[in-house]
């Protein structure tokens, strides 16, 4: 049963797999950054007292959290080039490829999830903090940026990182639009050489090692930031 497995194929394909892994990591980091920035903005909008800010933000977050990520990827894969063509007035979509569509898809998708995390984080900062800030004469933006958000983020870092690990796992879904991330690279080699068992088990192993060690570090970080009371 295990006799005709050929694990050499892994060694021979390491450079190609490495390129795929860089792609996965790059997409993860960029989407995380974009997602956190946009998510913070959305969270503030959801917490605002102006309906014109609150309702669109809530609508957006609820819509994206109800839709499967694969469908969101398809949406942006097909529509981003059309939108770029329309807005630039060119007869072609300048410079926007599948990678950019995927990046936009992931950023907008993750922003909805980050929004909820950040919103909870902001709400966990005692109300006294913002009240004190206002009493000292700080404006709303100043109070947010200098007092509330720093405390909120400090508490949220472990959860934000955990969501990042989930995002890293989700990048494997770019497979459906033919992009070559780590999983896509493993797949191509598996199909080209007929080595499904070896490549897919190897891919699972790598993902496991990366995610497990990162979440272990996050747990350690969490116990240092907020020791269990």
């Amino acid at each position, binding site marked *: *049963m*295990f006799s005709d497995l050929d694990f050499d194929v892994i060694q021979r394909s390491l450079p190609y797999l490495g390129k795929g892994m860089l792609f996965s990591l790059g997409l993860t980091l960029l989407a995380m950054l974009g997602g956190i920035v946009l998510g913070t903005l959305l969270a503030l909008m959801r917490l605002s007292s102006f309906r014109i800010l609150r309702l669109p933000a809530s609508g957006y977050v609820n*819509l994206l*959290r*109800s*839709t*499967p*990520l*694969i*469908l969101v990827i*398809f*949406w942006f894969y*097909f*529509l981003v080039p059309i939108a770029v063509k329309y807005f630039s007035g060119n007869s072609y979509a300048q410079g926007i490829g599948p990678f950019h569509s995927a990046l936009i898809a992931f950023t907008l998708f993750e922003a909805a999830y980050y929004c909820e995390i950040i919103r909870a984080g902001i709400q966990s900062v005692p109300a006294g903090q913002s009240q004190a800030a206002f009493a000292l004469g700080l404006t709303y933006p100043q109070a947010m940026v200098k007092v509330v958000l720093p405390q909120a983020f400090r508490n949220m870092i472990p959860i934000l990182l955990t969501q990042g*690990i989930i995002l890293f*796992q*989700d990048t*494997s*879904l770019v*497979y*459906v639009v033919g992009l070559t991330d780590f*999983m896509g690279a493993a*797949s191509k080699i*598996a199909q080209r050489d007929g080595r*499904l*068992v070896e490549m*897919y*088990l190897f*891919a*699972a192993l790598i*993902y*496991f090692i990366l*995610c*497990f060690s990162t*979440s272990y570090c996050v747990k350690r970080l969490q116990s240092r930031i907020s020791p269990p009371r």
Partner: protein
Amino acid sequence: MDFSFLSQPAFSGGGTYLNWVISGVQWTLLVGLSAWVIALSLGSILGVFRTTHIAWLYYPATAYVELFRNIPLLVQMFIWYFVVPEIVPSALGSWMKQGMPMPEFWSAVLALGFFTAARVAEQVRSGIQSIPSGQTYAALAIGLTPPQTYRHVLLPIGFRIILPPLTSEFLNIIKNSSVALTIGVLELTAQARSISEYTFRTFEIFSLATLVYVVITLTVTLLMSQLEQRVRMPGYIGGGK
């Protein structure tokens, strides 16, 4: 936006494209619900094991949770569909590939079920651990055995506590069923893509698919909040919104 393509006869298999959409929805729900049965039952057992101090229950459960949480769902599906039939004894493997009806469906259900079970286990564990330990001690003090404690005290309260996150896991399973399109399950997202290739009405069909997912989500959320109201223990857990 022109939705008339829905009533046009589909390219193959008879029926209209609307039939394809309905078929897709049926598969989505079937995969999601079947996987949820596995996830809820297995996940609850594992969650309970993770709250005990009995080593031979705790460590295997922990190992399971860590393994299935840290490998992406797509990879797990591929392993169930492509790898498992190759590494089991060849007679069983051949049956799995040829004789078994709908191998992609079963692979999808198993992959999704086992993946979500790990997450449900964590919810159950945190639910039980958030119950004040006084409850456990009181139960033991009046003579209940540990299994009875779980059965009569911890689990009833625990499940009520975790109904909200459990709802969200159930919704995740419905959404994650879309990953099954990579192994050939013709669920809703797969059908939407197929239809867009045959009719070129990309925007319309993706809007329809998105709308269906939103409706499913809203329905489930509504039903679950009704359930929360029904099982609420007055005065114990702050219920409702």
